[in-house]
């Protein structure tokens, strides 16, 4: 008896079997590669954090060297950090939350006097929509939340050579030593691009990227939001 390929029952069974087989194959491949992907992500993050605190003196490091510096100086912040107004979470306590939860880190460096360690600053997650898709990274600020130490981008899908240049060291180095206190009158916290005039913008302005107006503007927008939210979140935490 020849199997009627167009029998409705057969159609449904065929579709179900094919879908099940292929979905199972994908899930298997995903499960097998997950450890490697997670390891890559962890290493990338350690490198990024070492970079943003400038613990590497501005040089690119091998994975092992970065991991050592990370282990020596960087810790995750213990308490929960949530902005009361928007509900955005900047830190979930260590051990809680999943792989994608936002976490804030602090860097401790040896005191000049040689006794104990002092707080260098905090690195909190920044995120937002770039020109093409989501951009994620960290902004490092001094312990008093007044000055920025550096910025690093972990994930983005901007055009290579244009918006993609936000990851370049040269561009990012502009973010060391900027004034990130809340401006009076209220305005942009960090100016990306534009001709800075007036004392307000002194110490708050970085160059945009030629040909990447969209990305530059987007970064400026979400940086401002995240800085304000983080400041509010830290203040809310202090009160406790």
């Amino acid at each position, binding site marked *: 008896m020849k199997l009627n390929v167009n029998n409705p029952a057969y159609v449904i069974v065929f579709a179900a079997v094919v879908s099940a087989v*292929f*979905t199972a194959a*994908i*899930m298997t491949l*995903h499960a097998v590669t997950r450890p490697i992907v997670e390891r890559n992500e962890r290493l990338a993050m350690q490198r990024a954090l070492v970079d943003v605190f400038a613990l590497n003196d501005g040089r690119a490091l091998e994975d092992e060297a970065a991991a050592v510096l990370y282990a020596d100086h960087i810790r995750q912040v213990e308490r929960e950090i949530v902005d009361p107004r928007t509900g955005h979470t900047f830190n979930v306590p260590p051990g809680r939350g999943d792989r994608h939860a936002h976490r804030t880190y602090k860097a401790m460096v040896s005191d000049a006097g040689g006794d104990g360690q002092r707080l260098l600053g905090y690195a909190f997650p920044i995120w937002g*929509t770039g*020109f*093409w*898709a*989501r951009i994620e990274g960290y902004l490092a600020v001094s312990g008093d939340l007044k000055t920025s130490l550096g910025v690093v981008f972990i994930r983005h*899908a901007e055009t290579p050579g244009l918006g993609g240049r936000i990851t370049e060291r040269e561009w990012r180095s502009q973010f060391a030593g900027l004034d990130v206190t809340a401006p009076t009158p209220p305005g942009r916290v960090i100016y990306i691009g534009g001709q800075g005039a007036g004392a307000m913008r002194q110490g708050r302005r970085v160059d945009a990227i030629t040909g990447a*107006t*969209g990305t530059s*503007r*987007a970064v400026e*927008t979400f940086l401002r*939001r995240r800085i304000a939210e983080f400041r509010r979140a830290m203040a809310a935490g202090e009160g406790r």
Partner: protein
Amino acid sequence: MIAQAATNATPSLHLLLVLLSAALTENILLTRFLGMCPFLSVSKEFRSAFGMGLAVLFVVTCTCLLNYALYTGVLVPLSHYGVPAESLKLILFIVVIAAFVQLMEMVIERISIRLYFALGIFLPLITVNCAILGASLFMVTNVTGKGYGAARVLLYGFGTGLGWFIAIMLMAGIRRRLRTAKVPPGLEGPGITLIVTGIMAMAFVIFQGMIKI
């Protein structure tokens, strides 16, 4: 100025900006390169361009909503049980789109035979229109998890389709003029259409950065 307005916008203005940004500043065809195949072949005739544009507009709006509902309602909850939502969303979206278009074909066949014959060739072409799948994929990264939910997705889908529609209508009009122009032999057809598309894309670069949500 408009960028500043976006950040302080009321919800309704914000939604309007989502629509405008999807249609103009991030035009799915001229800025993101998607939906070129049918764009190049169907823009030859004004009438077919119009039909195709409307069909794409309808399909992309509906499938964006459908995919958003399924993604947030099914895949994301399942991801808490270890199901890789990121990898499987591609399959989910494309199957939903193909099924939707198939369904649409059957419904149109029942309702109006004339319309069915008029749209005949387009329907299978719509399934493989990169713009439709692309819209759903970009929707996940740009739109979800930001509040405003379904309304925003609806306007994003509609804006994307509208942008594609505008692009193909512009191209159809230009190609009509080109019929009486003296085009070098090697450039006839796809060649000159690509150059015109490039110039149109340059024109749309003006809109970049105007609106930032």
